[in-house]
């Protein structure tokens, strides 16, 4: 299948291992990515916190650009995904706002491009059997907890992604990769998001709690699909022994025997390589 691709700003910077692993896994699963022409930032938390219309117009510019191709839009970043879904929601509910935003952006919005996260595409379009068929190295001994965070799931009638209180799609992908997924109650708890820069002490407290609960659940790592969650979990734990954190696509690439994972793991702050070498997965 062919999809439009919106990497977003993080995936060109601090989350480049997410971008590279999404591209690598997509290629192996037969998903062709076509980057949206001349895309711009979605505005993230800063736009919607301070200026509602700006927060709709910025994603709308990209959605209108994406609509030139009749295909779904894949957005790996949970934060961008949420802003696009929110813009879509308001534009489809409020004709007056839609007319105003179209004038601001200078284009017609049709609502024709479905906004999708790679987790959803892999489970619902590619299928877990097809994914299983590509696994050459089962991730035995890896005991992850799935960490969905906030922005893939909430609000549920906007995101329409998975159960908002007990999501399972990521758990199912990890199980297919051969990991021994641990159950826990903190899948959808917040990591502190964008307050990481301006209110670091609050975020440290939140991340410490998540790490403690992951350990209590018997996990040896956490898995996420969000660059903000990754940055906070990987870098804000006050304990020296914060558990390693992975993007789910990094683990998929590892299980599929692809080139690349070791280089991506090197970019993490909490080095996951000792854990993987101990399990003979590297």
């Amino acid at each position, binding site marked *: 299948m062919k999809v439009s691709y919106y990497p977003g700003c993080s995936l060109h910077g601090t989350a480049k291992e997410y971008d590279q692993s999404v591209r690598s896994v997509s290629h192996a699963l037969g998903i062709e990515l076509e980057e949206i022409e001349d895309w711009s930032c979605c505005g993230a938390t800063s736009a919607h916190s301070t200026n509602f219309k700006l927060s709709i117009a910025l994603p709308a510019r990209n959605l209108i650009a994406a609509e030139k191709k009749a295909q779904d839009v894949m957005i790996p970043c949970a934060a961008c995904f949420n802003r696009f879904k929110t813009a879509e929601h308001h534009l489809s509910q*409020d004709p007056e706002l839609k007319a105003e935003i179209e004038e601001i952006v200078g284009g017609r919005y049709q609502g024709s491009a479905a906004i999708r996260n790679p987790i959803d595409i892999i489970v619902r379009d590619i299928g877990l059997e097809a994914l299983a068929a590509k696994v050459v190295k089962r991730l035995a001994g890896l005991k992850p907890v799935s960490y969905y965070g906030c922005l893939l799931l*909430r609000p549920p009638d906007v995101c329409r992604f998975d159960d908002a209180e007990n999501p399972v799609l990521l758990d199912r992908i990890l199980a297919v990769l051969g990991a021994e997924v641990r159950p826990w109650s903190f899948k959808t708890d917040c990591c502190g998001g964008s307050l990481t820069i301006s209110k670091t002490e609050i975020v440290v407290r939140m991340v410490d709690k998540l790490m403690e609960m992951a350990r209590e659940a018997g996990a040896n790592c956490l898995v996420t699909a969000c660059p903000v969650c990754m940055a906070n979990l990987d870098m804000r734990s006050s304990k020296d022994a914060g558990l390693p954190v992975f993007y789910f696509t990094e683990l998929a690439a590892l299980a599929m025997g692809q080139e690349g994972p070791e280089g991506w793991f090197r970019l993490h702050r909490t080095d996951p390589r000792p854990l993987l070498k101990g399990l003979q997965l590297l």
Partner: protein
Amino acid sequence: MKTFLEEVNEKINGVPIQRCYHCRKCTAGCPMAFAMEHNPNRVVKMIQMEKREEVLASGTIWLCVSCETCITRCPNEVDIARMMDVLRQMAIETGVGAKEKNILKFHEAFLANIRMGGRINEPTMMVHYKLKSGDLFSDMAMGIDMFRKGKLSLISPRTRDMKSVRRIFEKTRQS
């Protein structure tokens, strides 16, 4: 003259917040409640009691991190997260400013960066924030580590059609 409650409801443009019956589910699930001076459901009550200055000058409205747990669980579909956005915007528009100054400074640096290049360039955005906030030295070691790993580059690709991006900022500028 509109009451504070009428003004907030008009801007939310959805379920009126007086539908809240104070079950406190929002507060129970709020990951930031521990750091807030007023709990989320209390903010609703304060708006109904016309405590405009107290609400807009509070740190609470800036500490809300928009995790949307409140709206997900509210039995009456009161959109507390959207209410917090509205209150922040009212605090800016009316000149009250932000009690949590650095949170607003971060948002300003972030948006200024988009306005400049269409996309966020993380290092220049961080330098801008640090100069605005005066918090120059935190996270230095982390920044250097990321720079060494090639995660921070001063020359990330930008949006070419900057005219359209600037137009969006100009047309959505708040008076």
